[in-house]
């Protein structure tokens, strides 16, 4: 990343800007060198279930508390039947089913630093924290997404434990069948990078020589696997190694709503600077049969004594 001014200058400017009456002004990024701790990914939940912006007018209040939900209809069941000429069809009093997506806040930590201590940093710490906070917030979206997916499969039983230690096409088709069986189709496969590393090294006898050769040199460049969208995440504490998820397309799955997109707040009091980011979202699955999970017996990629 190329920047126009160095980090120390940036941090100085940051502090000076906080003292201006005009308020906080974001300065250009700097070119100071620092070591990143890990790759912070954007959220995978947003790739599986694209978010939809809503406003207060779209939501429903409660008489019991000051929170909001969005109520979503689910398609009504119907059927036809074969009859004799003189017979009557079944009757049905139409009654719709709906579910509610409650809204909640996801917030970063509230960061506090004295202006004097900010001068000790050789990298634009405030800018980096601000950028990372967005990804940290999306990580929480992902955690809730998986939590709700686990709740769904605990009801439907669509969890397949396999003694296999690696994911391959056969394991994936076993996963897909759990959704296909219910007259749905898999739209998206979610796995973590550990399992992806295993999947892409399948032999030529399995995937054909051209693909095997290409993958050996350039890696797996395709956004699909077995004609389903592939989403890979490095958040191995959220999607654990050995856990492969299958989801239908969003229209058959659920909802992800954003009420207020990420907001950034900053304040300076005497020589202390405070800043924080947050958003209001709601997510959930109305069609719980549209999710399935495969659990492989994948050994820890870290040798004994290490931790993931």
């Amino acid at each position: 990343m190329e920047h126009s001014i160095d980090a120390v200058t940036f941090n100085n400017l940051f502090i000076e800007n906080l003292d201006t009456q005009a308020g906080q002004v974001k300065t250009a990024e700097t070119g100071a060198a620092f070591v990143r701790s890990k790759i912070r990914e954007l959220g995978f939940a947003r790739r599986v279930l694209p978010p939809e912006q809503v406003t207060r007018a779209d939501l429903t209040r409660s008489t019991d508390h000051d929170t909001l939900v969005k109520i979503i209809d689910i398609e009504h069941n119907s059927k036809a039947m074969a009859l004799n000429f003189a017979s009557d069809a079944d009757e049905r009093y139409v009654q719709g089913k709906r579910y509610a997506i409650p809204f909640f806040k996801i917030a970063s930590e509230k960061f506090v630093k004295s202006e004097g201590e900010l001068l000790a940093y050789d990298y634009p710490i405030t800018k980096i924290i601000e950028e990372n906070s967005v990804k940290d917030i999306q990580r929480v979206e992902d955690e809730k997404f998986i939590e709700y997916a686990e709740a769904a499969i605990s009801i439907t039983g669509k969890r397949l434990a396999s003694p296999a230690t690696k994911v391959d096409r056969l394991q994936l088709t076993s996963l897909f069948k759990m959704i296909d069986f219910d007259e749905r189709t898999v739209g998206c496969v979610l796995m973590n990078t550990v399992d992806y590393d295993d999947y892409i090294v399948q032999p030529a006898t399995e995937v054909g020589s051209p693909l095997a050769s290409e993958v050996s040199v350039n890696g797996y460049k395709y956004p699909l696997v077995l004609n389903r969208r592939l989403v890979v995440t490095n958040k191995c504490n959220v999607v654990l190694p050995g856990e492969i998820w299958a989801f239908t397309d969003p229209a058959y799955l659920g909802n992800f709503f954003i009420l207020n997109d990420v907001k950034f707040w900053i304040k300076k009091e005497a020589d202390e600077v405070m800043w924080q980011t947050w958003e209001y979202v709601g997510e959930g699955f109305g069609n719980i049969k549209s999710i399935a999970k495969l659990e492989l017996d994948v050994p820890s990629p870290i040798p004994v004594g290490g931790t993931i």
Partner: protein
Amino acid sequence: MISVSDVRTSPVGEDLTTDASFSIVRGLETMYRVDKKKAAGISLVQGEWAVLNSAGEAAAPSATPVAQTYLVFLGSDRFDSHATGAVTLVMNSAIILKTSLFEAASYNVGQLLTVKASKKLVGAGAGEWAFGKVVELASGVMTVEVFAQPMKA
């Protein structure tokens, strides 16, 4: 009213794509749907059964079946019922219904059914009032021919 403990508030705790646990498959057009004031302190939901008490209110059945027992078509878990204080009963109507609201027991096709304190269908003993008959049994769902008038088993 949406409650945070509602099973249909995310994370959703039921399969919403299945048919309802109760549906009337014959007789909808001709059946009598009658509102009756609900007795204080009880709840009645669709598919359960209620008795009329001495004040003509819809009340919970007791351990002894009585003739004035009726199917609850729309219960007290709705906004309109909350506003009116009444539930909608099916009265004097022969219908066929499919329901999963019956007591856990063993049933046979042709068996007469009554209603006791659970507010659900159960096999009728000799001499008890019967309100319907089993016509079909499937996994977790019973098809019942409901009588227009009760009869003694």
